[in-house]
């Protein structure tokens, strides 16, 4: 049967099923095939916190979303165009996010009385008319998968049942004209040790593809052309976890310092421990510490020994590391603290995203203890941000907090593989023994060694144990300027407090200015700036794009360095009549900007465990541009209720 082919500029597909249905696998296979086509893409997994929630329940639904397009895209998308639901719970959990007209493809076999009950459906939604606003395709995936694999020797009923996700992959791959060889090669590799299972999965995939090709249920095949507006080069798909790990390893190579990651298992930061622990052969040591405190201490101990000490955590782990970060501020040693933010407070929602650790990163230690804070803006930017964090930590002898989040860690996008030669060298500039060739400014001239002397950036010498002639003691007690001896002198404490602050402030000299994506038509002056920070960049740019398409005049900018802020931040804020700051917390950046620059920031906040959506940004812009008289009329949070004044 010859079928019609329709063009689409962009498509959002969500694969949803029970935790045991293999939806993450289905999604990532589809992603790889899509990358090969040359579409721009962004993905986002969404899985339950429970490892094995009861099968068939809403709590057990696991999903994977991908947006792919023939133009550059900025987010995994807000509302799916296509929902693949492997059981009733997956349909129920995701239906509310579908717009009318969306396509729903269900595994009809899973819509049994028992499964409907488990999902809390009183009546079968496939037959009660509740889905009439959608295009629903009912495919008996389990039956057809079983039929496809039943002839294969050595395949159990269980194996057959588990292969239905590849049947689904086959159907969707046909529907969007994805190449089949990528997925087939993957299946062969993945199940190389169990040829029968490999054969079963291949059969299921092929059956799904053939079903799409022959069934009259699906009468149109869609085509999304390769994206042409992305920079040329060699690409791979990375999520924030992989990119961040690679950034740290790249910094290790370019600084010549072996990497020591000490970490305690916590969702979602554990993924970094898993990723980096694979690379022991190339100078990466990983320690699974007894607790979060020890993890920070071990990383700092490694830094004292002249290595690149890193600790990574999420949520409550940050609370526990505060004490050690304070010690690192005092010791003035390099330390990288990765905070993969998650919804809090306390245990909160461990698998859900949030940007609510900003104030903690900036201020969450006792005493005056400033440090640089960097927040990557995209999955790929996690590479550059990690590299920069390491460079700043080493150059300035300071702890640096890298504020990633659950969304960045798990979402993926095509990444232009950097040229290693373009990565700057990082000079650890260890202090060397007196009388030997030295490039350390402070150590060579002083006798005896002055561990708290400072160079032109106010950084102190890093003299690692084993260096003759430089034996010295450091500690958490206040230091006398220069000698580093214990000092309780008030004037010295003031001086040292100011020096530590000035050193961190001096990092700002290297922070690039805040660049504003201004309304392209200069004849249309813009008075509204949307300013975000960290992981919301994609949603904000996409939202601004939507608003411009609707005729609104709006500019946007994204902060990546949260401390120090870019030097021009105040000028940028004051050059717009109105500034809207969307963030996934209750207004943390907004309060900082108000305090620092005395600018009346309008705050849009959301804490639903979800990333920011482009549509939400567009709505906020629209509300401000169509009702410009009274800012107070604009809802301050999603549910439209005004929050009490801070």
């Amino acid at each position, binding site marked *: 049967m010859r079928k019609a082919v329709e063009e689409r500029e962009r498509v959002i597909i969500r694969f949803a099923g029970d935790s045991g249905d293999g939806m993450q696998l289905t999604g990532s296979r589809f992603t790889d095939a899509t990358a090969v086509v040359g579409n721009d893409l962004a993905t986002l997994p969404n899985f339950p916190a429970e490892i094995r929630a009861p099968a068939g329940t809403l709590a057990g639904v696991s999903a994977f979303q991908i947006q792919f397009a023939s133009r550059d895209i900025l987010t995994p998308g807000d509302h799916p165009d296509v929902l693949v639901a492997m059981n009733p719970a997956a349909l129920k959990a995701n239906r509310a996010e579908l717009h009318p007209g969306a396509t729903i493809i269900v595994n009809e076999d899973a819509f049994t009385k028992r499964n409907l009950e488990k999902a809390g459906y009183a009546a079968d939604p496939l037959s009660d008319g509740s889905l009439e606003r959608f295009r629903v395709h009912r495919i008996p995936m389990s039956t057809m998968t079983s039929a496809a694999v039943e002839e294969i020797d050595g395949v159990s009923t269980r194996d057959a049942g588990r292969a239905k996700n590849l049947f689904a992959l086959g159907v969707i791959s046909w529907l969007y004209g994805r190449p089949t060889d990528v997925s087939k090669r993957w299946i062969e590799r993945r199940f190389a040790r169990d040829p029968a299972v490999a054969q079963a999965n291949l059969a299921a995939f092929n059956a799904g593809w053939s079903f799409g090709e022959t069934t009259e249920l699906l009468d149109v095949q869609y085509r999304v052309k390769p994206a042409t507006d992305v920079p040329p080069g060699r690409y791979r798909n990375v999520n924030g976890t992989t990119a961040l790990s690679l950034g740290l390893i790249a910094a290790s*190579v370019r600084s010549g310092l*072996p990497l020591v990651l000490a970490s305690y298992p916590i969702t979602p930061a554990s993924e970094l421990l898993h990723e980096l622990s694979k690379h022991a052969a190339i100078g990466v040591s990983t320690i699974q510490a007894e607790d979060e405190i*020890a993890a920070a201490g071990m990383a700092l*101990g490694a830094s004292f020994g002249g290595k690149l000490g890193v600790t990574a955590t999420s949520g409550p782990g940050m609370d526990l590391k505060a*004490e050690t970060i304070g010690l690192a501020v005092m010791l003035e040693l390099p330390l990288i603290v990765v905070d993969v933010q998650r919804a809090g407070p306390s245990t909160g929602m461990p698998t859900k995203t949030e940007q609510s650790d900003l104030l903690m990163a900036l201020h969450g230690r006792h005493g005056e203890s400033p440090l640089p804070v960097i927040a990557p803006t995209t999955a790929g930017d996690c590479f550059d941000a990690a590299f920069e964090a390491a460079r700043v930590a080493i150059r300035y002898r300071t702890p640096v907090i890298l504020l990633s989040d659950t969304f960045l860690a798990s979402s993926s996008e095509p990444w232009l593989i950097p040229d290693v030669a373009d990565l700057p060298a990082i000079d650890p500039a260890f202090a060397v023994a007196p009388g030997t060739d030295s490039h350390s400014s402070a150590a060579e001239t002083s006798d005896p060694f002055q561990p708290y002397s400072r160079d032109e950036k106010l950084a102190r010498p890093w003299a690692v144990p084993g260096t003759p002639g430089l*034996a010295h003691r450091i500690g*958490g007690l206040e230091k006398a300027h220069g000698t580093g*001896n214990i000092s309780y002198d008030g004037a010295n404490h003031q001086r040292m407090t100011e020096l530590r602050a000035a050193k961190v402030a001096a990092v700002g000299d290297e922070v690039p200015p805040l660049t504003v994506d201004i309304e392209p038509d200069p004849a249309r002056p813009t008075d509204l700036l949307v300013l975000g920070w960290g992981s919301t960049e994609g949603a904000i740019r996409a939202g601004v794009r939507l608003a411009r398409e609707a005729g609104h005049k709006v500019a946007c900018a994204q902060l990546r360095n949260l401390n120090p802020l870019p030097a021009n931040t105040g000028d940028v804020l004051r050059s717009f009549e109105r500034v809207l700051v969307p963030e996934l917390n209750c207004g943390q950046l907004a309060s900082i900007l108000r305090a620092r620059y005395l600018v009346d920031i309008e705050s849009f906040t959301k804490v639903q465990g979800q990333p920011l959506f482009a549509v939400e940004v567009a709505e906020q812009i629209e509300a401000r541009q169509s009702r410009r008289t009274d800012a107070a009329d604009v809802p301050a949070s999603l549910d439209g209720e005004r929050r009490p004044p801070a």
Partner: protein
Amino acid sequence: MSATLAKGDFQSDQETRWCPGCGDYAVLAAVQQFMPELGIPPERIVFITGIGCAGRFAYYMDTYGMHGIHGRAPALATGLATARDDLSIWVVTGDGDALSIGGNHLIHALRRNVPVRILLFNNQIYGLTKGQASPTSELGKITKSTPFGVSDHPFNPIALALGAEASFVARTIDRDRHHLTEVLRAAARHEGAALVEIYQNCPVFNDGAFGALTDKGARDANQIRLRAGEPIRFGAENERGVIRGDGGCLEIVEVAEPDDAGAARSGEAGRRAAGRTVSEDALLVHDPARADPGLAFSLAKLAETPTGPTPIGIFRDVARPVYRQTGATEPASEAQLIELLGAGATWEVG
């Protein structure tokens, strides 16, 4: 260089500021005196300390040093030891630091067998915070924080370390320079984590806590000196000893000299003797290298508090795999980095 090292090479220019008469002075002097014996240049020795009076130790050693945070010295030391296997790393801690706020780090450093020597100054009191009960304070002790007496059961640091699978566990006393040095020597020789409990007198808040083991007239009666390969005997006249009694528990008994006819019978018969007098060959022979820690644990529990006969010396000294870094010592080459960045499925645009 090591041939020329002397005590003075390990003394920093910082003025020591413990209270007059503090046991810490004696330990510091003994450690500085002992260091040249290691034959390791000072720059390859690191002292890492926690918080408390003992925490100041690092400032007084002319080596590399880090005065860390309360209880975390073993964690800092583990990171350093992971990063650098060319250093001799020593942790100095106290009973509050190691056994209360830092208990978790202590037991995990011991179970991992991290190559660090941990000197635990036990004075059974919080000194730097001016006299609160510590986790080794005895039951009923009146302190500032326990005006009606300590009501929580104290830790026995030796038993705790043995329970944490420590491969080297010893106890010594601040005032006994010779014994202290002997124990330091053995600890330095040991590969892996070494825990040395040092009974350390706090003259201000807990003076005389270890009088039974240090005072003239009492110490000879109460110090049970453990010596590898020797029967466990003690007493002013060496007249007492330790046997494994009924039910496997250790017991303190009188030892009869061989010519003390009729007082004891040897061997099994001696052990079953109705009285508490046995001949020397019925005594337990100390063996710190024994794989099973059970006997060492029983020895640790022989004295619940150091107010009577108390074993000192090396309880356990066994070989066990030492914690090492997991990664290569050099970072990746640029070629390896290029390969790593371009790994997995890639595609070309343009």
